[in-house]
């Protein structure tokens, strides 16, 4: 070990309490950074997972168009010098389905980007059970396709998704909805479609996605039953859910599909912009708080280093007289700061991990909106690496000025008294 490091070590050992206090500043800063970022990223991941559990990568559907600029009168008088003005036009009959759905589906199946597709018929309905009437929606699906895409099997409270295939007019109901209607497996529920059609379905399963906006309103029936309820033929499809091999390419792929087919294509990020925004807010908050903690720790180290150097003026002077150059003095004090930083960062990482681990085993207060058993915490090596990096850099920066000051001390001033 070089003589400079020997002196640095002796200084640190001689004032253990001071060293410890300086180190703890860094330790807590880094521990809080790790804890906060683990928790925030855990929440982000949970939100994204939940979001993706009911949002397809791309949702293709026929948006109701409110473009009334074309009128028959306009067509009739075309080319003639007349101005046609139709006041308060009434929308003509709009089709909600995707035309040529079969061709569309087979075209999508051949697309190399696409992993899964699920054709859907959706409509608003009234659920009637005894005197209770609740509005909601149903999705008529090929349950195999839908189950593969959203992993429905894991979300069943009772029953199995496949029951839709075997049961005659079966329905899989959201847990919140089932609770409100007070229905159980095997009960018969009447569904009233907007066109007045009334059908009775038997509850063959209850699912819970963990988002009340879905669980309280949605049910699944088979595609054929859905079409039947709406009084439409077998080619009637209103939506197509698409899952890509790489969901990061959703935005681009959605645009292509829109241009190709003219239907509205929402990618998952657009559909869940609010989740993305709140992720950003959480990230920002994490970094602001962590940087503040580290800066406070840095000032602590700066103070302690300054104090140490003021106390060691004589030692510095004598070392200089004996042939220690300015850079030696700087090395002596800077290495103390670095030592404090690295040790503080390492113990901060450990403390941070322990706290994060403890938090991950705290039960999350049960509620009907989110399906969480424990606080969501992410354990990612990158966070610990950054913790170590920042934890070591902060004391280095904080120790730099005092060390420079020490290096510049004029020994004559001190030695003469």
């Amino acid at each position, binding site marked *: 070990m070089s003589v400079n490091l020997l002196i640095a070590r002796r200084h640190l*050992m001689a004032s253990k309490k001071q060293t410890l206090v300086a180190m703890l500043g860094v330790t807590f800063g880094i521990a809080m950074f790790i804890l906060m970022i683990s928790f925030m990223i855990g929440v982000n991941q949970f939100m994204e997972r939940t979001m993706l559990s009911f949002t397809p990568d791309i949702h293709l559907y026929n948006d109701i168009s409110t473009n009334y600029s074309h009128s028959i009168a306009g067509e009739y008088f075309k080319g003639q010098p007349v101005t046609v003005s139709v006041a308060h036009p009434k929308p003509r009959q709009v089709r909600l389905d995707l035309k040529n759905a079969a061709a569309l589906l087979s075209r999508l199946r051949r697309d190399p980007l696409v992993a899964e597709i699920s054709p859907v018929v959706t409509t608003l309905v009234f659920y009637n059970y005894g005197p209770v009437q609740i509005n909601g929606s149903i999705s008529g699906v090929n349950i195999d396709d839908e189950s593969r895409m959203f992993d429905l099997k894991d979300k069943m409270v009772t029953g199995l998704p496949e029951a839709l295939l075997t049961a005659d007019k079966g329905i899989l109901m959201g847990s919140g909805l089932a609770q409100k209607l007070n229905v159980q497996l095997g009960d018969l529920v009447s569904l009233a479609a907007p066109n007045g059609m009334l059908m009775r379905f038997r509850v063959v399963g209850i699912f819970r996605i963990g988002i009340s906006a879905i669980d309280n309103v949605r049910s699944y029936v088979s595609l054929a039953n859905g079409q039947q309820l709406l009084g439409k033929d077998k080619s009637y499809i209103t939506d197509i859910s698409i899952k890509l091999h790489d969901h990061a390419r959703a935005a681009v792929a959605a645009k292509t599909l829109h241009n190709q087919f003219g239907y509205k294509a929402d990618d998952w990020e657009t559909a869940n912009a609010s989740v993305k925004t709140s992720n950003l807010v959480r990230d920002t908050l994490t970094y602001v708080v962590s940087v503040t903690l580290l800066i406070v720790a840095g000032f602590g180290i700066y103070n302690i280093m300054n104090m140490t150097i003021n106390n060691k003026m004589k030692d510095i*002077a004598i*070392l200089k007289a*004996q*042939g220690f*150059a300015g*850079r030696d003095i700087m090395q002596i004090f800077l290495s103390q700061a670095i030592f404090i930083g690295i040790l503080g960062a390492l113990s901060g990482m450990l403390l941070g991990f322990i706290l994060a681990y403890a938090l991950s085993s705290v039960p999350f207060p049960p509620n009907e909106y989110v399906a969480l058993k424990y606080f969501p915490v992410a354990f990612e090596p990158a966070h610990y690496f950054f913790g170590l990096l920042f934890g070591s850099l902060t004391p280095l920066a904080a120790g730099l000025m005092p060390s420079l000051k020490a290096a510049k001390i004029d020994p004559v001033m001190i030695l003469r008294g």
Partner: protein
Amino acid sequence: MTPALTAEKLNKYFHEPEEFRVLQDISFTINKGEFVPIIGKSGCGKSTLLYLLSTLDTDYSGTITINGERVTGLSQNELALFRNQHIGFVFQFHFLLPEFTALENVMLPALKLGRWSKAETEERALAQLQQLEMAPFARQLSSKLSGGQQQRIAIARALINEPMIIMADEPTGNLDSGNTRLVFDIFNQLAHEKGIAVLAVTHDLDFAKQADRVIEMKDGHIVSPGA
């Protein structure tokens, strides 16, 4: 006689609180094996002179040559190395590093120099302490020793790198007469037996009188250049 140190026309100004010429055209030579006290009244510039000669203070005009090498104009880093190799310091306040043992204090300049291995350095430091009858205290923290003991440790530390010249600023200023006597004898011995030049600023006339020659200063001039 070979000169250990030569000073030529040294001038030094203090700029604060007001412009003041502390040293005025100081020139003299000290030979190897000479023990030379510098005496004079408080404020005559003797300490200032010593810090110029010791290369710690570089704000002066004139030329200083130590052991044949011109030190005036060297960079701070070069001067640090030069001090480490060629100059031993003894101060009024012993200035040992309190966190280190007596032995470690003696070893530090040699470890910095890096000429000997750590084991060798320790051996040499112990031998040095032995000569000054301080070996029994080698493993004690320096802050636990008495003033006389500390000063002897400081002398051992000054000698560890086998310097050509020892510079002392009031080395006996804080010591009783017994210890003063002892430090004087050590300096005398170093000069006469080992051929080291010893330059000591002091206001202790008894101490000075017994030396080979005395440089006396008054108002920034040398009034008795000695023998």
